Protein backbone atom coordinates (compact mmCIF):
# COMPACT_ATOMS: atom_id res chain seq x y z
CA UNK A 1 0.00 0.00 0.00
CA UNK A 2 1.44 3.38 -0.93
CA UNK A 3 2.09 5.98 1.74
CA UNK A 4 0.63 9.37 0.84
CA UNK A 5 3.72 11.48 1.53
CA UNK A 6 1.98 14.74 0.72
CA UNK A 7 -0.14 14.51 3.86
CA UNK A 8 2.59 12.94 6.03
CA UNK A 9 0.47 10.05 7.25
CA UNK A 10 2.25 8.05 9.97
CA UNK A 11 3.01 4.38 9.15
CA UNK A 12 0.44 3.17 11.65
CA UNK A 13 -2.33 5.05 9.84
CA UNK A 14 -4.19 3.16 7.15
CA UNK A 15 -6.30 5.04 4.63
CA UNK A 16 -9.00 4.40 2.07
CA UNK A 17 -7.57 3.73 -1.36
CA UNK A 18 -10.68 3.24 -3.40
CA UNK A 19 -13.54 5.57 -4.29
CA UNK A 20 -16.03 3.66 -2.15
CA UNK A 21 -17.27 4.15 0.56
CA UNK A 22 -18.90 7.55 0.05
CA UNK A 23 -16.69 9.02 2.78
CA UNK A 24 -12.95 8.61 3.09
CA UNK A 25 -11.79 6.88 6.30
CA UNK A 26 -8.50 6.22 7.98
CA UNK A 27 -7.46 4.11 10.96
CA UNK A 28 -5.23 5.34 13.79
CA UNK A 29 -4.50 4.39 17.40
CA UNK A 30 -7.03 5.59 19.98
CA UNK A 31 -6.12 7.98 22.80
CA UNK A 32 -7.74 9.10 26.05
CA UNK A 33 -8.81 12.32 24.36
CA UNK A 34 -11.15 10.23 22.18
CA UNK A 35 -13.40 9.51 25.19
CA UNK A 36 -16.25 11.82 24.22
CA UNK A 37 -16.39 10.50 20.67
CA UNK A 38 -16.23 6.97 22.10
CA UNK A 39 -19.27 7.74 24.25
CA UNK A 40 -21.32 8.53 21.13
CA UNK A 41 -21.30 4.90 19.94
CA UNK A 42 -20.71 3.21 23.30
CA UNK A 43 -23.91 4.58 24.82
CA UNK A 44 -26.08 3.49 21.86
CA UNK A 45 -28.08 0.30 22.45
CA UNK A 46 -28.46 -0.23 18.69
CA UNK A 47 -24.68 -0.47 18.50
CA UNK A 48 -24.28 -2.75 21.53
CA UNK A 49 -27.05 -5.15 20.56
CA UNK A 50 -24.65 -7.94 19.56
CA UNK A 51 -21.83 -6.90 21.88
CA UNK A 52 -21.19 -8.77 25.09
CA UNK A 53 -21.27 -5.46 26.95
CA UNK A 54 -24.12 -3.12 27.86
CA UNK A 55 -24.18 0.55 26.77
CA UNK A 56 -21.90 2.79 28.84
CA UNK A 57 -23.65 5.20 31.18
CA UNK A 58 -20.76 7.22 32.62
CA UNK A 59 -17.69 9.01 31.34
CA UNK A 60 -15.66 7.51 34.21
CA UNK A 61 -16.46 3.98 33.07
CA UNK A 62 -15.50 4.94 29.52
CA UNK A 63 -12.16 6.37 30.67
CA UNK A 64 -11.52 3.18 32.67
CA UNK A 65 -12.26 1.10 29.58
CA UNK A 66 -9.89 3.19 27.46
CA UNK A 67 -7.15 2.86 30.09
CA UNK A 68 -7.65 -0.81 30.94
CA UNK A 69 -8.53 -2.32 27.57
CA UNK A 70 -7.98 0.03 24.64
CA UNK A 71 -4.57 1.57 25.35
CA UNK A 72 -2.83 -1.73 26.25
CA UNK A 73 -4.50 -3.64 23.39
CA UNK A 74 -2.04 -5.27 20.97
CA UNK A 75 -3.94 -4.00 17.91
CA UNK A 76 -6.88 -1.63 18.15
CA UNK A 77 -7.60 1.37 15.90
CA UNK A 78 -10.09 4.21 15.79
CA UNK A 79 -12.09 4.44 12.54
CA UNK A 80 -11.93 8.12 11.58
CA UNK A 81 -13.35 10.43 8.97
CA UNK A 82 -11.35 13.31 7.49
CA UNK A 83 -11.64 15.39 10.66
CA UNK A 84 -9.65 12.64 12.48
CA UNK A 85 -12.43 12.09 15.02
CA UNK A 86 -13.39 8.47 15.75
CA UNK A 87 -16.79 7.16 14.69
CA UNK A 88 -16.02 3.57 15.69
CA UNK A 89 -13.20 1.16 16.30
CA UNK A 90 -11.72 -2.03 14.90
CA UNK A 91 -9.40 -4.51 16.57
CA UNK A 92 -7.54 -7.75 16.03
CA UNK A 93 -7.11 -9.79 19.19
CA UNK A 94 -4.71 -12.74 19.26
CA UNK A 95 -6.48 -16.02 20.10
CA UNK A 96 -3.27 -18.03 20.01
CA UNK A 97 0.04 -18.00 18.17
CA UNK A 98 -1.50 -18.29 14.70
CA UNK A 99 -5.06 -16.94 15.00
CA UNK A 100 -6.39 -13.43 15.40
CA UNK A 101 -10.02 -12.45 15.90
CA UNK A 102 -11.29 -9.30 14.24
CA UNK A 103 -14.00 -7.20 15.85
CA UNK A 104 -15.45 -3.82 14.95
CA UNK A 105 -18.05 -1.35 16.13
CA UNK A 106 -19.41 1.72 14.35
CA UNK A 107 -21.72 4.55 15.37
CA UNK A 108 -25.19 3.81 14.01
CA UNK A 109 -25.40 7.19 12.25
CA UNK A 110 -22.66 5.90 9.92
CA UNK A 111 -24.17 2.52 9.10
CA UNK A 112 -25.06 1.63 5.50
CA UNK A 113 -22.27 3.62 3.83
CA UNK A 114 -19.66 0.89 3.43
CA UNK A 115 -17.47 2.29 6.19
CA UNK A 116 -17.14 -0.90 8.22
CA UNK A 117 -16.45 -2.81 5.01
CA UNK A 118 -13.63 -0.44 4.12
CA UNK A 119 -12.19 -0.61 7.66
CA UNK A 120 -12.17 -4.43 7.57
CA UNK A 121 -10.63 -4.37 4.10
CA UNK A 122 -7.82 -2.08 5.29
CA UNK A 123 -7.11 -4.38 8.22
CA UNK A 124 -7.20 -7.58 6.15
CA UNK A 125 -4.77 -6.00 3.67
CA UNK A 126 -2.19 -5.08 6.30
CA UNK A 127 -2.49 -7.28 9.38
CA UNK A 128 -0.48 -10.25 8.09
CA UNK A 129 2.45 -8.00 7.17
CA UNK A 130 2.43 -6.58 10.69
CA UNK A 131 1.95 -10.04 12.26
CA UNK A 132 3.84 -12.52 10.10
CA UNK A 133 3.11 -15.40 12.50
CA UNK A 134 -0.62 -14.98 11.99
CA UNK A 135 -2.01 -17.67 9.69
CA UNK A 136 -5.71 -16.99 10.16
CA UNK A 137 -7.89 -13.95 10.76
CA UNK A 138 -11.31 -15.02 11.99
CA UNK A 139 -14.62 -13.44 12.96
CA UNK A 140 -17.60 -14.82 14.89
CA UNK A 141 -20.90 -13.15 14.05
CA UNK A 142 -24.34 -13.68 15.57
CA UNK A 143 -26.70 -15.46 13.12
CA UNK A 144 -29.07 -12.50 13.38
CA UNK A 145 -26.40 -9.87 12.69
CA UNK A 146 -26.88 -9.88 8.94
CA UNK A 147 -25.27 -6.46 8.43
CA UNK A 148 -21.99 -7.61 9.90
CA UNK A 149 -22.05 -10.85 7.90
CA UNK A 150 -22.41 -8.80 4.71
CA UNK A 151 -19.39 -6.67 5.67
CA UNK A 152 -17.16 -9.72 5.89
CA UNK A 153 -18.54 -11.32 2.72
CA UNK A 154 -17.98 -8.12 0.74
CA UNK A 155 -14.35 -8.02 1.85
CA UNK A 156 -13.75 -11.64 0.81
CA UNK A 157 -13.86 -13.55 4.10
CA UNK A 158 -14.90 -17.19 3.72
CA UNK A 159 -18.09 -18.20 5.54
CA UNK A 160 -17.07 -21.49 7.15
CA UNK A 161 -20.31 -22.49 8.86
CA UNK A 162 -22.72 -21.98 11.73
CA UNK A 163 -21.74 -23.11 15.22
CA UNK A 164 -24.87 -23.91 17.16
CA UNK A 165 -25.26 -22.65 20.73
CA UNK A 166 -21.72 -21.33 20.64
CA UNK A 167 -21.68 -18.01 22.46
CA UNK A 168 -23.22 -16.68 25.64
CA UNK A 169 -24.70 -13.25 25.02
CA UNK A 170 -26.67 -11.31 27.62
CA UNK A 171 -28.43 -14.28 29.12
CA UNK A 172 -28.87 -16.34 25.96
CA UNK A 173 -26.75 -18.91 24.17
CA UNK A 174 -26.48 -17.90 20.52
CA UNK A 175 -25.72 -19.59 17.21
CA UNK A 176 -22.69 -17.94 15.60
CA UNK A 177 -21.38 -17.81 12.04
CA UNK A 178 -17.63 -18.35 11.66
CA UNK A 179 -15.70 -16.47 8.97
CA UNK A 180 -12.03 -16.51 8.16
CA UNK A 181 -9.51 -14.74 5.95
CA UNK A 182 -6.08 -16.22 5.26
CA UNK A 183 -2.95 -14.52 3.90
CA UNK A 184 -3.44 -16.58 0.72
CA UNK A 185 -7.04 -15.37 0.21
CA UNK A 186 -7.86 -12.52 -2.20
CA UNK A 187 -9.50 -9.32 -1.10
CA UNK A 188 -12.64 -8.50 -3.05
Amino acid at each position, binding site marked *: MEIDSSSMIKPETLSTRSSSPSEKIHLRPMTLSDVDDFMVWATDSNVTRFCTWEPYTSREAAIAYLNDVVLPHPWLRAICLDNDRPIGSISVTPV*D*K*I*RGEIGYVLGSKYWGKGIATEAVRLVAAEIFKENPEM*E*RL*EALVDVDNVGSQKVLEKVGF*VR*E*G*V*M*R*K*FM*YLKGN*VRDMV*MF*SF*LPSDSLH
Partner: protein
Amino acid sequence: MDAHDFLRWAGDDRVTGNLRWPAFTSEEEALTFIRDVCLPHPWRRSICIDDRSIGFISIFPETGDNRFKAHIGYGLSHEYWGKGITTRAVSVAVSQVFNDLPHVLRLQAFVQTQNKASQRVVEKIGFQKECLLRKYTYLKGQIYDVFVYSLLSSDLLPLP
Protein backbone atom coordinates in the same frame (compact mmCIF):
# COMPACT_ATOMS: atom_id res chain seq x y z
CA MET B 1 -2.59 -48.83 39.15
CA ASP B 2 -3.47 -48.12 35.55
CA ALA B 3 -0.04 -46.69 34.70
CA HIS B 4 1.31 -49.81 32.98
CA ASP B 5 -1.78 -50.30 30.79
CA PHE B 6 -2.01 -46.55 30.23
CA LEU B 7 1.53 -46.44 28.93
CA ARG B 8 0.80 -49.15 26.35
CA TRP B 9 -1.38 -46.73 24.39
CA ALA B 10 -0.32 -43.33 25.78
CA GLY B 11 3.27 -44.07 24.80
CA ASP B 12 2.24 -44.73 21.17
CA ASP B 13 2.59 -41.79 18.83
CA ARG B 14 -0.05 -43.25 16.51
CA VAL B 15 -2.56 -42.71 19.32
CA THR B 16 -1.29 -39.40 20.74
CA GLY B 17 -0.13 -37.80 17.47
CA ASN B 18 -3.41 -35.90 17.03
CA LEU B 19 -3.73 -35.06 20.73
CA ARG B 20 -2.08 -32.32 22.71
CA TRP B 21 -0.38 -34.94 24.90
CA PRO B 22 3.30 -35.78 24.58
CA ALA B 23 3.98 -39.48 24.04
CA PHE B 24 4.94 -40.75 27.50
CA THR B 25 8.09 -42.81 27.78
CA SER B 26 8.12 -43.91 31.41
CA GLU B 27 5.67 -45.18 34.00
CA GLU B 28 6.70 -42.31 36.22
CA GLU B 29 5.66 -39.73 33.59
CA ALA B 30 2.44 -41.65 33.14
CA LEU B 31 1.71 -41.73 36.87
CA THR B 32 2.38 -38.02 37.17
CA PHE B 33 0.01 -37.33 34.28
CA ILE B 34 -2.69 -39.56 35.78
CA ARG B 35 -2.30 -37.87 39.15
CA ASP B 36 -2.09 -34.28 37.95
CA VAL B 37 -4.38 -34.29 34.92
CA CYS B 38 -6.69 -37.31 34.86
CA LEU B 39 -7.83 -37.67 38.46
CA PRO B 40 -8.86 -34.03 39.02
CA HIS B 41 -10.43 -33.88 35.56
CA PRO B 42 -14.14 -32.98 35.46
CA TRP B 43 -15.11 -35.96 33.30
CA ARG B 44 -12.62 -38.51 32.15
CA ARG B 45 -13.09 -42.23 31.68
CA SER B 46 -10.94 -45.14 30.65
CA ILE B 47 -12.20 -47.34 27.86
CA CYS B 48 -11.71 -50.82 29.29
CA ILE B 49 -11.71 -54.42 28.24
CA ASP B 50 -11.80 -56.84 31.20
CA ASP B 51 -11.24 -53.80 33.41
CA ARG B 52 -7.90 -52.98 31.71
CA SER B 53 -7.50 -49.53 30.22
CA ILE B 54 -7.17 -49.54 26.43
CA GLY B 55 -8.02 -45.89 25.85
CA PHE B 56 -9.76 -42.85 27.20
CA ILE B 57 -12.65 -40.45 26.66
CA SER B 58 -12.44 -36.97 28.06
CA ILE B 59 -15.06 -34.24 28.25
CA PHE B 60 -13.78 -30.83 29.22
CA PRO B 61 -16.22 -27.99 29.73
CA GLU B 62 -14.93 -24.48 29.30
CA THR B 63 -15.00 -22.05 32.20
CA GLY B 64 -17.09 -19.12 33.35
CA ASP B 65 -19.79 -17.96 30.93
CA ASN B 66 -18.62 -20.64 28.46
CA ARG B 67 -19.17 -23.63 30.73
CA PHE B 68 -22.27 -24.59 28.73
CA LYS B 69 -19.98 -25.97 26.00
CA ALA B 70 -17.54 -28.85 26.34
CA HIS B 71 -14.88 -30.40 24.17
CA ILE B 72 -14.82 -34.14 23.69
CA GLY B 73 -11.55 -35.95 23.07
CA TYR B 74 -10.69 -39.64 22.88
CA GLY B 75 -7.87 -42.04 22.10
CA LEU B 76 -7.69 -45.81 21.70
CA SER B 77 -4.84 -48.29 21.79
CA HIS B 78 -3.76 -49.03 18.20
CA GLU B 79 -4.28 -52.79 18.45
CA TYR B 80 -8.01 -52.20 19.00
CA TRP B 81 -8.60 -49.84 16.07
CA GLY B 82 -11.13 -50.73 13.38
CA LYS B 83 -13.60 -52.66 15.55
CA GLY B 84 -16.11 -49.93 16.37
CA ILE B 85 -14.96 -49.76 19.99
CA THR B 86 -14.46 -46.02 20.09
CA THR B 87 -17.88 -45.41 18.56
CA ARG B 88 -19.54 -47.57 21.21
CA ALA B 89 -17.59 -46.00 24.04
CA VAL B 90 -18.21 -42.41 22.93
CA SER B 91 -21.89 -43.18 22.40
CA VAL B 92 -22.20 -44.36 26.00
CA ALA B 93 -20.16 -41.42 27.27
CA VAL B 94 -22.29 -38.86 25.46
CA SER B 95 -25.54 -39.99 27.06
CA GLN B 96 -23.91 -40.12 30.50
CA VAL B 97 -22.30 -36.70 30.18
CA PHE B 98 -25.52 -34.79 29.53
CA ASN B 99 -26.87 -36.38 32.73
CA ASP B 100 -23.73 -35.89 34.81
CA LEU B 101 -23.07 -32.31 33.64
CA PRO B 102 -26.55 -30.82 33.18
CA HIS B 103 -25.22 -27.32 32.51
CA VAL B 104 -23.53 -28.59 29.31
CA LEU B 105 -25.69 -27.73 26.28
CA ARG B 106 -23.13 -28.32 23.53
CA LEU B 107 -20.54 -31.05 23.03
CA GLN B 108 -18.02 -30.21 20.35
CA ALA B 109 -15.32 -32.18 18.59
CA PHE B 110 -12.60 -30.50 16.57
CA VAL B 111 -11.25 -33.17 14.23
CA GLN B 112 -8.38 -32.72 11.81
CA THR B 113 -9.48 -33.05 8.20
CA GLN B 114 -7.12 -35.96 7.52
CA ASN B 115 -8.39 -37.97 10.51
CA LYS B 116 -11.16 -39.84 8.70
CA ALA B 117 -11.56 -42.57 11.33
CA SER B 118 -12.31 -40.04 14.04
CA GLN B 119 -14.79 -38.24 11.80
CA ARG B 120 -16.63 -41.53 11.27
CA VAL B 121 -16.92 -41.99 15.05
CA VAL B 122 -18.72 -38.71 15.64
CA GLU B 123 -20.80 -38.97 12.47
CA LYS B 124 -22.09 -42.43 13.42
CA ILE B 125 -23.13 -41.13 16.82
CA GLY B 126 -25.07 -38.25 15.26
CA PHE B 127 -22.84 -35.22 15.73
CA GLN B 128 -23.58 -32.54 13.14
CA LYS B 129 -20.72 -31.31 10.97
CA GLU B 130 -20.85 -27.51 11.18
CA CYS B 131 -17.73 -25.99 9.67
CA LEU B 132 -14.41 -26.49 8.01
CA LEU B 133 -12.02 -24.19 9.89
CA ARG B 134 -8.97 -23.43 7.81
CA LYS B 135 -5.53 -23.21 9.42
CA TYR B 136 -7.18 -23.45 12.83
CA THR B 137 -4.98 -25.72 14.97
CA TYR B 138 -1.30 -25.38 15.73
CA LEU B 139 -0.13 -28.73 17.08
CA LYS B 140 3.37 -30.09 17.50
CA GLY B 141 4.86 -27.78 14.89
CA GLN B 142 2.20 -28.15 12.17
CA ILE B 143 -0.90 -26.17 11.23
CA TYR B 144 -4.09 -28.09 10.48
CA ASP B 145 -7.54 -27.55 9.03
CA VAL B 146 -10.26 -28.99 11.26
CA PHE B 147 -13.90 -29.97 10.96
CA VAL B 148 -16.10 -28.84 13.82
CA TYR B 149 -18.79 -31.30 14.90
CA SER B 150 -21.39 -30.67 17.58
CA LEU B 151 -23.99 -32.55 19.52
CA LEU B 152 -26.48 -30.52 21.55
CA SER B 153 -28.31 -31.84 24.58
CA SER B 154 -31.46 -30.88 22.65
CA ASP B 155 -30.39 -33.17 19.76
CA LEU B 156 -30.92 -36.17 22.05
CA LEU B 157 -34.45 -35.29 23.09
CA PRO B 158 -36.97 -37.86 21.90
CA LEU B 159 -39.10 -36.79 18.94
CA PRO B 160 -42.74 -36.00 19.82
